[in-house]
């Protein structure tokens, strides 16, 4: 009886030890954090073979691994683009392990699809866009389980071999998810060992470390690229704002100059009017025989009119002109402008080469008349004895799409956009190369004193620019000058 009781006690005590031991075992495995646990054994896969290296071999191997990971980390930190990072990850996995190929896929949570990112040792014939793998694949299993998958022979795995085929996964492989803060970024596959036998545990460990470090770097690069893009967008917005601000300031300045010029013009014209009326009166009362007094009066009158023309030109130049644009036939504007200067033509032959059936141009007729009159007068003055004035107009595709005068984006002609060209050519004295560079400068003139204000071409250029057109002058000394104006066709 006593023996029986002791036996029972002994039995009970033994059972308790087993229970306690099992509890301790369970609690130990729970304490290990998820990320430090060895890869979970997936269902129906081959077990990792037991390791039995010597201590020295282990030490050397781990030193090599540490060295490799340091270098890998260094390379990652120098990679500033997404492409560089994925290349670095894939190459590292391929170079360190004795495998045939490494393939990296990126995962899109929204579409639940993978896209090919990079491969080393695998030639793919398809473009990146067309190689799309969905969640019903081995890569999908890795994403779902968020754990590494280690396979020695795919054909032997009943479940995995029936999933959607991924070409690069043939026999043995390790597939590891790239996870950053609970978000799966992609899957790294290392495939087909070069040496016989299954993958070792330390091989899996290396791939997992590569994936872990690569995921952090990918996320950092993504943030960096987003920040850079944002910075670039901000810079563009800032530059646009600055340009608008400059234009506004310029516009305000021009407005102020315009107002000042109007005020000055008015103030100047009053005394000029007095002088003209005074000269007119004296002309009436002085005897026609008094040549010198009459000549003096003539000089005063001429000078007064010259000042008046300068005031007019200054007003034109400084005024912030508003264009009244209407579709017009350029031929009719040319004719009416020529008509206004016909008394100046004298012995000059006029040749017209105006294309028929030209489209209309969107212009301010009065302003353009002013331009043409100015150019005709310049041409006439360049031919004091006689000569030929040729007026051409035709439709054309501009050879250049850049505006040679202004850098405004809206000044460019669009590719394939037709335009109307006007050429005013004379056979006069021409302009030297040196003077040609200054031809549009305000107050620059090649005419004698009193013959021009030097503002005509500046004003003409301003008017053409306001029409978003082009103006160019070509000339040869003693041969003649050609002014080429390109204007936009009216869409109406």
């Amino acid at each position, binding site marked *: 009886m006593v023996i029986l009781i002791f036996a029972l006690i002994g039995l009970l005590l033994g059972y308790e030890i087993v229970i306690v031991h099992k509890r301790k075992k369970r609690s130990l495995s729970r304490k290990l954090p998820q990320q430090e646990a060895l890869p979970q054994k997936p269902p129906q896969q081959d077990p990792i073979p037991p390791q039995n290296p010597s201590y020295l071999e282990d030490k050397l191997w781990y030193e090599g691994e540490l060295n490799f990971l340091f270098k890998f980390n260094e390379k990652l930190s120098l990679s500033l683009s997404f492409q560089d990072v994925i290349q670095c990850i894939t190459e590292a996995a391929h170079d360190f392990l004795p495998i045939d190929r490494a393939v990296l896929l990126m995962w899109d949570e929204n579409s639940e699809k993978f896209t090919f990112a990079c491969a080393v040792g695998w030639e793919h014939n398809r473009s990146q866009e067309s190689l799309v793998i969905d969640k019903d694949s081995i890569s999908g299993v890795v994403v779902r389980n968020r754990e590494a998958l280690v396979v020695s022979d795919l054909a032997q795995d009943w479940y995995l071999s029936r999933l959607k085929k991924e070409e690069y996964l043939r026999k043995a492989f390790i597939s590891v998810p790239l996870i950053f803060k609970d978000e799966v970024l992609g899957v790294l596959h290392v495939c087909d060992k070069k040496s016989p036998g299954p993958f070792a545990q330390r091989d899996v460990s290396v791939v997992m470390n590569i994936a872990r470090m690569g995921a952090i770097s990918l996320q950092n690069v993504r943030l960096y690229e987003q920040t850079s893009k944002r910075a670039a967008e901000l810079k563009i917005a800032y530059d646009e704002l600055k340009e608008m601000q400059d234009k506004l300031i310029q516009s305000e300045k021009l407005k102020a100059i315009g107002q000042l010029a109007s005020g000055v013009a*008015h103030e100047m014209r*009053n*005394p000029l009017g007095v002088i003209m009326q005074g000269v*007119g*009166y004296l002309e*009436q009362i002085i005897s026609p025989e008094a040549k010198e007094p009459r000549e003096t009066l003539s000089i005063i*009158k001429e000078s007064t009119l010259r000042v008046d023309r300068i005031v*007019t030109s200054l007003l034109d130049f400084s005024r912030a002109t508003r264009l009244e644009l209407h579709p017009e036939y350029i031929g009719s504007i040319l004719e009416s402008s020529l008509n206004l200067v016909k008394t100046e033509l004298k012995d000059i032959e006029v040749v017209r080469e105006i294309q028929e059936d030209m489209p209309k141009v969107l212009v301010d007729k009065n302003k353009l008349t002013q331009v043409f009159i100015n150019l005709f007068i310049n041409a006439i003055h360049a031919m004091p004895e006689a000569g030929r004035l040729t007026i051409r107009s035709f439709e054309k595709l501009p050879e250049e799409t850049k505006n040679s005068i202004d850098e405004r984006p809206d000044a460019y002609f669009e590719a394939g956009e037709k335009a109307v060209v006007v050429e005013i050519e004379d056979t006069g004295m021409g302009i030297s190369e040196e003077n040609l560079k200054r031809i549009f400068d305000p107050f620059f003139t090649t005419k004698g004193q009193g013959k021009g204000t030097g503002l005509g071409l500046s004003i003409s250029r301003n008017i053409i620019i306001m029409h978003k057109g082009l103006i160019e002058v070509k000339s040869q000394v003693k041969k003649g000058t050609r002014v080429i104006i390109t204007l936009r066709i009216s869409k109406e």
Partner: protein
Amino acid sequence: MYKKRILIIDDEENFCKLVKKNIEQTGEFEVHIATNGDDGIRLVREIKPDLLLLDIVMPGMDGADVVQLIRDDESIKDTPIVFLTAIVREEEASSQASFTRGYALLAKTVTVGELIACIKKNIRGYAQP
């Protein structure tokens, strides 16, 4: 001989004096002067001129104000007006000062010949030769 009456309203007194001399030199016209808008409108009502030469920009009552008062007064609303101006071109004048629309514009720096021609073209009841 009955001479047509012309009234000049312009704040530039010297200009008015010389214009008066030049117009009266022809022997066909009698010229009156006002150097501000208030005196000018009073004279328009008194003498009922056959032509008014009117400056646009004047201190106080300007050309636009004078025109409005003339149009509002039945007895003088048909007075022919020629505007004296420092404005550059006619199309700009009409867009900038709508009250000048329909009337002749004369730059202040015109010659005497142009002035007389303009007067003869616009004065009330002038028999063209």
